[in-house]
């Protein structure tokens, strides 16, 4: 109840977005697709909201994990030559 009242005050008197709205913006933020206005709203919200801040951190760390930890396979040595050869043959 107290939390609801607190949120109501934040949203209605201080122009804060709701947690629901914050979570909707979460992926746009993570993917760098939010507009400057959305970004500002989002930042303002997570500055004061620990659960949303933590969720954002998790989202970012998963994205980072995908980018950095997946094994990159080496391109087979003969692939480029074989492609070029085929192109020459069809030219």
């Amino acid at each position: 109840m107290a939390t609801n009242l607190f949120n109501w005050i934040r949203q209605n008197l201080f122009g804060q977005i709701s947690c629901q709205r914050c979570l909707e913006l979460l992926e746009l933020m993570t993917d760098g697709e939010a507009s400057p206005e959305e970004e500002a709203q989002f930042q303002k919200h997570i500055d004061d909201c620990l659960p949303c801040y933590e969720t954002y951190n998790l989202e970012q760390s998963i994205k980072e994990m995908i980018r950095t930890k997946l094994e990159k396979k080496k391109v087979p040595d003969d692939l480029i030559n074989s492609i070029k050869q085929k192109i020459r043959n069809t030219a």
Partner: protein
Amino acid sequence: MSVEKVKQNYSSREKDRIFEQEFLPHIGSMYNFAYRLTFDEDDAKDLVQETYLKAFRFLNSFQQGTNAKAWLFRILKNSFINDFRKKSKQPAKVDYQEVETFYNSEDVDVSMTTDLRVETVQHMIGDEVSNALNALAVDFRTVIILCDLEGFTYEEMSKILDIPIGTVRSRLHRARNLLKEKLQAYAKSMGYNK
């Protein structure tokens, strides 16, 4: 979605230059994408080769100054769907029920019920990440690869996959939730997150 098709008329010298300087540098990303679609080195090699041959054959449809990597990924994705999946000796691992359940649920659930922790994610090793990603149906795996691994924008993904941006977003959202479930299950089985 209408894709404007303005045919160019490149000289053979220009074609060679575009192919060498704009197409070939992406072969690493292309090969890795192909491998993550097919799970087979020979299949991945064939798919990449087929893609580059097509790219060369249709080079006049490529506009210089536009994103060559996105153009190549689109050809590769189409080759995979149209030609490759059919003749591939290994059928793509698709859990249709999983796809259906998620495609049919209209409500986008923004609540986060996972108790996955940042520290758990940070301690995961490459194989664990790979296994979780590979366990996803191909359509979900694809959006995560395009977005998180290759850094394509929603708009580029929409062109590569021939789907509206709204669908890119909802598919990505569902893919990420599924991935979190897999990671969470894995963390649990390893005794993390107690």
